């Protein structure tokens, strides 16, 4: 199980080495056995998985193609709706919520033969950078079990690193895919905003939320993205742009590719992370890329901007968890006002409450112009920084995180320091450009470090071409 890729699964199925049902049973039992080490899965879906696997086997038996993801065990972050399965958002408030419909991404994965084997742990409502904000306990990093896997998609990164799934889905609002990918030593991709439908992704910050893939190599991540990508009439913000063949873009040839290194990112980078990232730059040069320094002058405002916009949107998006309908309801509330206060007060964790309060504040009468409106203006400036840079370079490379995976509990009581761990990832999120993390080596303690690649809007082909070449060099 541990070593499978999408192509090895396909080869095994077509050569009848194993059936999809056999592989699914094996994947489920291995994942269930391994899970106590990491707490990465919150639930498993054997019935749904086996039904999907049977369909794949039937296709093969009928001489049809098993599909781009035929028989591939896929894990799904528990903020993405899966019909008939619990979708908890790692929150007590949705502890017993069974999704009545499938996210568009899930429909497309199953149509392509993918097998959903379980739902993964994460920070509550995807808010966090260490996966310690889960109502169902933290996830441990399979590379070093005393350390965090990153967040918020910590469970989805851990299962792929651990080999208990071949690929997985995460969601990224400010770095929630790239940072855990980097901490766990795998590939994580945040596509262009609008590339993958958000229908069925539980909203945290709508203008920043993305669904994206985790995989153990770029090719698998690209395949999974290609399956999910494309216009969805159920998401007004999904893009019309046609989806190219990402496989065809991975030519291995990156000679002459112009690559920018933002000076603003490197001035803070120190220690082994900086060393490994700098070594990656030399490697890229050796591969024939042309490296040059660029400036993204508004980078310093990114964290403030991000935490205003994402908390504002979150404060509104999370209003629906009010105890009136599907949310776990606080008992013994005599009045409507008590019902709201008790349900939300008891149900939400500390970090979620902190963000709801921050967001409510920045949208309040008299503060909107000073905070939210100004933040949107800065967001435009940050996007313009990137647009300008991409007139000169084909891709930008940078660190993913200032530091590798930290120890559980290390930053729990210091939210500001926790927020700062997103410093390199949130600019790309704010601009809505495609970005990814790809492994670039380990520290002396054996902790993985990721290299971030960022491209212009809908520039996934260039991003994958560079990442694939880097990975194979």
């Amino acid at each position, binding site marked *: 199980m541990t070593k499978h890729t999408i192509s090895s699964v396909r080869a095994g199925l077509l050569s009848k080495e194993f059936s999809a049902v056999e592989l699914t049973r094996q994947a489920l039992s291995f994942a269930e056995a391994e899970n106590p080490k990491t707490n990465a899965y919150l639930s498993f879906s054997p019935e749904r998985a086996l039904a999907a696997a049977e369909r794949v086997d039937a296709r093969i038996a009928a001489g049809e193609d098993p599909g781009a993801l035929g028989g591939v065990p896929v894990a799904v972050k528990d903020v*993405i*709706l899966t019909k008939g399965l619990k*979708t908890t*958002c790692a929150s007590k408030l*949705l502890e017993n*919520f069974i*999704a*009545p*419909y499938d*996210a568009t991404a899930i429909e497309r994965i199953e149509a392509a033969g993918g097998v959903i084997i379980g739902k993964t742990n994460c920070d509550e409502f995807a808010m966090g950078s260490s996966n310690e904000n889960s109502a169902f306990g933290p996830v441990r990093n399979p590379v070093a079990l005393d350390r965090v896997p990153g967040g918020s998609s910590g469970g989805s990164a851990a299962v792929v690193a651990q080999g208990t799934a071949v690929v997985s889905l995460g969601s990224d609002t400010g770095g929630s895919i790239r940072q855990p990918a980097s901490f766990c030593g795998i590939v994580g991709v945040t596509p262009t905003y609008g590339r993958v439908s*958000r*229908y*069925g*992704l*539980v*909203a945290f*910050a*709508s*203008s920043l939320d993305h669904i994206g893939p985790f995989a153990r190599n770029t090719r698998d991540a690209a395949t999974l993205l290609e399956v999910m990508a494309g216009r969805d*009439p*159920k*998401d*007004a*913000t999904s893009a019309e742009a046609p989806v190219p063949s990402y496989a065809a873009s991975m030519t291995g040839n990156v000679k002459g590719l112009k690559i920018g290194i933002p000076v603003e990112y490197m001035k803070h980078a120190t220690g082994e992370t900086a060393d490994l990232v700098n070594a990656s730059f030399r490697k890229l040069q050796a591969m024939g890329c042309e490296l040059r320094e660029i400036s993204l002058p508004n980078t310093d405002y990114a964290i403030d901007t991000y935490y205003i916009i994402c908390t*504002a*949107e979150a*404060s*509104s998006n*999370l*209003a*629906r968890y*009010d105890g*009136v*309908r*599907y949310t776990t309801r606080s008992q013994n509330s005599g009045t*409507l006002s008590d019902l*709201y206060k008790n349900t939300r007060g008891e149900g939400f964790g500390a970090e979620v409450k902190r963000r709801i309060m921050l967001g*409510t504040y920045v*949208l*309040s*009468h008299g503060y*909107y112009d000073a905070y*939210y409106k100004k933040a949107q203006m800065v967001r435009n400036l940050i996007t313009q920084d990137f647009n300008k840079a991409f007139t000169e370079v084909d891709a930008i490379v940078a660190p993913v995180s200032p530091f590798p995976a930290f120890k559980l509990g290390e930053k729990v009581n210091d939210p500001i320091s926790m927020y700062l761990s997103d410093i390199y990832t949130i600019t790309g999120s704010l601009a809505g450009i495609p970005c990814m993390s790809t492994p670039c080596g380990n520290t002396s303690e054996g902790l993985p470090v990721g290299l971030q690649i960022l491209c212009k809007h809908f520039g996934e082909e260039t991003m994958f071409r560079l990442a694939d070449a880097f990975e194979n060099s």
Partner: protein
Amino acid sequence: MELAPPELIAKYQPVIGLEVHVQLATRTKIFCSCEMAFGAPPNTNVCPVCLALPGALPVLSMDAVELAVKASLALHCRVNPVSRFARKNYFYPDSPKGYQISQYDEPLAEHGYVDITVDGVKKRIGVTRVHMEDDAGKSVHDGFRDSDRNTYVDLNRCGAPLIEIVSEPDMRSSDEAYAYLTELKQALQFVEVSTCDMEKGHLRCDANVSVMLKGAEKFGTRAEVKNLNSFRFLKLAIDYEIARQVALVESGGRMVQETRLFNADSGETVSMRSKEDAHDYRYFPEPDLVPLRVSDEWKARLAASMPELPADKRQRFVTEYGLREYDAQVLTLTRPMSEFYEEVASVSGDPKTAANWLMGDLAGLLKAAGKEIEESPVSAKHLGELVAMVSKGELTGKSAKDVLPKMFETGEAPGPIVDREGLKTMSDMGAVEKIIDDVIAANPKQVEQYKSGKTAVMGFLVGQVMKASRGQAAANVVNDMLKTKLG
């Protein structure tokens, strides 16, 4: 509450603005494809989007936009090429998202007007803006066994497409407000944007009312009066509110900005919440929707598809058909009425007579039968044919009055009825002359009176001739012939 007497109210100038919510007549809800069926069992016309399930997203219905644009054009508004949706955040059980999707600082359309006439005086009332939004569900507080403890929520209406039409504070009396709402409703019904059925809540109205001393320049502090769900209540509530405010100010009190609820049973308004308690809605742009773009081409296409507006039609009826203002107004009250009339006018070739027959005899028959003009058993074409026969002198007015009820009963054209009953006007002049001679011979006394100057007796003689001809002699012919014969 003490109310001010009329002589005191007369010292003050009321200032009134209306906020009108109209439900658009689309097949589906505004942000999902649920049907907009009225009267379905509770919570059956719902889906993940209008239930606000986690992960569900709104998608704007272009049908709703089309109707909203038509409404804006009917109210002479400028439709903005780009408008934007915003979230209005508040907690309430019948609002499952925890926010309403509305439009805030970039509405669909602005700067329109509605022309009204009150007591013969024409006045233009400004329309500040028209914006789109979704409706909430319904909280049901009564009618269940445990209604003393629980409230039930029906989300069928949740996500119904609405437009809100905000007027300028241009009205100065409840009569003007009444006239404004009448014109507005009529215009929206004409362009088929909404049924505007107030009983079903398809048209809802709030009024902003303030008073100031006559001659003052600064408006007084206003109160917003809600729950005005009929034209009568609108007028009652505004008049009550004016009298209340004047009494308050006259007694040395100070108006506070507040929201008040009209109680239809008592005819009073009561305070609901003051400005201090007002919600902070924390508006911000709706990130799940892209900006709404209405291209010039689309707007032009919609404008071209619009029917003539009632005010324009009214004016045309006066100039083109020579109708009186009042008749033109009656005949343009509804679009079906105006269309019916135009066909009668065109088929008959005599618009004025057509108007009289439609507003008189046919209207009377419809009223007695409890039918609307759309349900009339007499088609516009048939009424037109009847009017034409009268105009051309083929049928006397008196005979026509007998024919119409028969048409109403059977749905037949007038021709066959007239033929069957032999009602055609007598065209044989000899026969008419014979009847006249007989009448002259039979009434020597009256003939003598006429000759001695009592011309009023002519009416009696004509009546005798008509009676003898069973109403089939043409009255003008009889008149002329009698006059000639009597010298």
